[in-house]
């Protein structure tokens, strides 16, 4: 396993245009995520979780500080390069599976491979293998016809298709009942371990806590920076 950090955030400050001066939505002094490390990030609504995830995914421009994903500073990349970097190094899992309608399970996974460095001729084979590993036996069927559990598996398969260094999970279980939520988290955590990807899971579900050795609240992260500044 490489020693490069999956994620390294330094002196990151972000505020939305139009908010009062120094009212940072995100203000993080230092945050590291080692390879294959799994961390739960908690925080109530409006705490800036979503903003932080977008910054890490490279979907928002960095205003101050730096974010390195798989050893590459996002601020050093052009927008288009950043998009490609995200595609190759960061997998995202959402509350809703966000599968592409009108495309088969296999095509959903192949859509992620479009942005990988894997030669196109191998995309289908790669996708089929991945889906088989995750227990999808009808890879050419429309995801709408699969069970909720299977759709979850397709979404996970798509997120890890490019062998990312980092998986961002945004409230992955919020729309599932407790039983299914457990199963889904098992799947996500096991899969991340098996490919050596770090997992940053954002959730305010108290039942999640026991699943993660490292838990951190965004409020604490922000406060840490504020204290540091006050010193």
């Amino acid at each position, binding site marked *: 396993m490489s020693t490069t950090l999956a994620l390294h955030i330094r002196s990151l400050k972000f505020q939305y245009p139009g908010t009062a001066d120094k009212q940072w939505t995100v203000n993080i002094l230092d945050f590291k995520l080692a390879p294959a490390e799994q961390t739960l990030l908690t925080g109530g609504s409006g705490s800036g979780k979503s903003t932080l995830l977008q910054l890490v995914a490279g979907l928002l421009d960095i205003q101050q500080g730096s974010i390195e994903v798989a050893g590459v500073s996002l601020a050093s990349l052009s*927008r288009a390069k950043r998009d490609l970097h995200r*595609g190759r190094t960061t997998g*995202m899992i959402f*509350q*809703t599976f966000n599968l592409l309608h009108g495309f088969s399970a296999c095509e959903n996974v*192949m859509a992620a*491979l*479009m942005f990988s460095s894997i030669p196109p001729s191998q*995309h289908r084979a790669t996708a089929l293998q991945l889906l088989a590993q995750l227990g999808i036996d009808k890879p050419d069927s429309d995801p709408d016809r699969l069970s909720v559990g299977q759709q979850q598996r397709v979404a996970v398969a798509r997120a890890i298709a490019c062998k990312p260094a980092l998986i961002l999970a945004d409230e992955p279980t919020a729309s599932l009942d407790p039983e299914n939520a457990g199963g889904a988290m098992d799947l996500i955590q096991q899969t991340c371990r098996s490919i050596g990807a770090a997992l940053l899971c954002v959730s305010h579900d108290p039942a999640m806590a026991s699943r993660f050795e490292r838990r951190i609240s965004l409020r604490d992260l922000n406060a840490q920076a504020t204290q540091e500044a006050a010193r």
Partner: protein
Amino acid sequence: MSNSMTDWTIILRSLRARLFSTITTVVTVAVAVALMLVLLMMRDSGRRAFERGSGNMHLLVSADASPLVSILNGIFYANPPRRPIAWSKYQEIAAKFPLDFAVPTQLGDSYQGNPVLATTPEFFTKFQPVPKEPWKLASGKFFDTEWQVVLGARAAATTGLKLGDQIALTHGAGGSRDTGASKDAQPGPAPGHVHSEFKYTVVGILEPTGSAHDRALFTNLNSTWIIHAFDRRERAEHASDSSKDHDHADHDHDHDHDHDHDHKAHHEPPMTLADITDEDRKVTGLYLRLITREGSDSPANLPQIFDMLRRDPTITVAQPNQEITRLFSIVGNIDQILVGMAGVVMASSGIAIMLALYNSMEQRRRQIAVLRVLGASQTRIFGLVLTESALVGVLGAILGLVISLLGVRIVTAIMRDRLGLVIEPLLSPEVAMLVVVATIALGVLAGFIPALMAYRTPVAKNLKPLG
């Protein structure tokens, strides 16, 4: 099953997902393209068709009401001229001016709706339907005596006649064209009656010339004069007949059916060249060409001779080139307006593309957001939508091209049947390319706003659960 996903997979899937909208948009574009192409084709070949036909003649003399009418009747066979010119007038003109040729023509008969032009052999030897392109025979020979007929290329094709076939001509235009107007003007036998006493033999079939002459049948003047002398004689007899035994209406009713045997009984043989008088020798047009110097087609004395002929109140004299230019200065404006309108229709079809894409954007926001998360850049998303729009343009252009090629056949058939204009629709590759490229450009332009919407689609917001 393809091995990988590409932008094309996404574009085609998107077009297929809203198939009804895609088809209606493509058809809208296609109709606009077809309209534009048909108009452009008609404009070019319409002008060409008008420029052909007068050939190497300098002047057309007739007794029609105006020079333009005389051109339309005498060269484009629009209607048979109503008023004849006396043979003596022809002789006078032929003798008075320094002419290369003076070809007398007589219109009035038809065969299955195709006009019959009675003329002299000089029509084939001196007159050229298109400058520097003399008549060519596809088969047979030109007529050299009475009761022989030579077919224009299209007349041969539409009637299916072959060399050696025997036909009887119809007096008057007959067929589908405007016979109503000539009904009152022409006294004598009912228009459209068949001269079945006199059989013509097909002796020649001409090569196509791309002019209105292709639609005509050609025979010599003597034959026509004999028939009309016969009609005149018959008319006189019936006038006295009807006063004796039956009333006029009765006779008209029987006329066509009894014609043949009835008159053979009275006159055997029906009529010969010896029976015709100067009164029968009438023509409806004179094709004139002045003597020119080698290599020149505009003799210096043309204006002078034109003026002298114009002073004669019994005839109308026309310079075909001038009349056609004048006609096109009128028609030219109209076709500019039509092309302008076709342009507006094309622009509307562009708006149709834009609306279809715009409406689809709402449903595609999530798809776009997902693709962004998977690694697609904003520019790539922009290109995806723009390509989709351009593709609708391409499909519309191709379908439009096909429709226009079919449509132009219908329009030319109508032009031929209604106006007597033989138009060979030709689509120059440059014009076709220009319209196709313009349509694709239109598609790209139409896709710009939807593509910009796609470009600006916020990612995080569109990945949240609905509601």
